[in-house]
């Protein structure tokens, strides 16, 4: 299974040019994340990006233990409503951010993919927790776990931890906001085009 080159948008990886090397027996193909971030932004782009980054409405999507930490972040102590995230929308049409909080299982992968396709265009994905990044504690000896959500949909920000602390989720959300602020507002590179047809 050839693992094609994976370009990641992470601050610390920026300068060091470190290539992300996956273990040889990493099953499945990984979709390169990052939708054209980190480019010079015109005035109009910065206004629209300011609007988009400050009102990210997450989707109601929590599969397992990380969902409890996401609820804790929504609660009063680590309140993410300060950034305007607390308008969680049950329908994918109005949400523009999926926080994959928990394990993605083979039976859930098509559902996740359909939810991603149903979301309106400037959409972002946060993989929260070790299970969403690489299958976490269920990587070995499990026949039903998808080894990482980026086999299914392109992921913008990865938050390690099992489950990550609410502060880690907040830091991930702020990182996503920074990434949106450096994005090209009008022309959006949809990284998943061609994944189904196998040309990616």
């Amino acid at each position, binding site marked *: 299974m050839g693992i094609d080159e994976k370009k990641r948008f992470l601050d610390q990886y920026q300068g060091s040019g470190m290539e992300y090397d996956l273990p040889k027996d990493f099953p499945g193909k990984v979709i390169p994340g990052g939708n054209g971030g980190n480019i010079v932004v015109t005035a109009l782009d910065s*206004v*629209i990006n*300011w*609007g*988009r980054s*400050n*009102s990210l409405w997450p989707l*109601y999507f929590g599969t397992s233990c990380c969902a409890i930490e996401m609820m804790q972040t929504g*609660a*009063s102590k680590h*309140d993410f*409503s*300060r*950034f*305007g995230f*607390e*308008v969680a*929308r*049950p*329908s994918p*049409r*109005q949400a*523009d951010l999926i926080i994959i909080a928990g394990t993605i299982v083979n039976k859930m992968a098509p559902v996740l993919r359909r939810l991603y396709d*149903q*979301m*309106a*265009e*400037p959409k972002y994905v946060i993989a929260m927790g070790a299970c969403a990044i690489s299958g976490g504690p269920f990587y070995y000896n499990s026949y039903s776990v998808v080894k990482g959500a980026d086999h299914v949909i392109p992921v913008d920000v990865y938050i390690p931890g099992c489950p990550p602390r609410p502060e880690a989720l907040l830091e991930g959300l702020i990182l996503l906001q920074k990434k949106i602020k450096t994005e090209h*507002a009008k022309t959006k590179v949809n990284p998943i085009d061609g994944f189904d047809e196998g040309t990616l």
Partner: protein
Amino acid sequence: MMYKIFLPLSITKSIHTWLFDVLPEGVAPYVEMVLIAVAYLLVFAVAGLYLVLLERKVAAWFQLRLGPNRVGPFGLFQTMADALKLVSKEMYGTNRADKFLYNLAPYFPIITALLAMAVLPFSAQFQAFDINIGIFFLLAVSSVGVIGILLGGWASNNKYSLIGAMRSGLQVVSYELSVGLSLLTMVVLTGSLQLSEIIEVQKNGWLIVQGHIPAIIAFVIFMIAGTAETNRAPFDLVEAESELGAGFHTEYSGMKFAYFFLAEFINMFIISAIAVIVFFGGWLSPFGITEEISWFPSVLWFLGKVLIIVFLMMWFRWTFPRLRVDQLLNLEWKYLLPINLFNLVFMAIVVWLGWVITF
């Protein structure tokens, strides 16, 4: 230029005269009407945004948390960012939906919401149209809004939104009754449907004081039915988060969803505005304390009272659980309707025997 602002709001009179002598006879009224419409649209789009922010701040205050405070000073630009994002969002719908009706639906609630704005007397000079069937017009317009929700829910060809739409039709049709009857009880007291007339009557004592017991009952019923009218709080079965997901606007995204979202908040403003006009004396100051001061804009009294009622409706939302569908109908048809009818007769007797408290 400074002293001009302090003149009682006669700016509209000066624009009116300037328009009529500049433009030819036929065109002037239409241009004036367009100007008024654009002014109302701008004022109330921004007011809608800040009502959303007020709701989120009040909810945060109830729920021991801070609420949006990172976007702009004290979070004031938060809903501005939301609106900007919704404008730049992709209009993404399902292709199984009935295209024309699906796109037509969001405009119903927003238009009826702004339509009802035109009649509200914000202050003595600041009223667009003072038609003599004021309250009747308000009732008619507020029941047209539900057609948009029914249309939207049914046209988007999604099972959850169909259930949500049917629930909203059911709910607004039955609670329209109580809103109408409770306002009718107050009209028995005032004798006229014209809004400015109603405020005239309240110059010697607010209606809730004049009508004492039946007026208070009518106010309570009006608040319950008004909350149900705007699909909020204990009656928010239409987009019940935990039952139907996003209810009737499941398939709407971007600006189409923003119309539904904004219309709900402007409806809340209208219901509390009607309550203030009919029960708490519109723009009149309590006991006439600021009548003599000529430069004091009486709009502030009106807006202050409206915000108190809006806070009350927000208070309902964050404390009460949701009613089930059959309980909703039981409450209306078995409890509110009989009380309303009895209250109407009681008010008629009170007015006939003249037991009205006037100052």
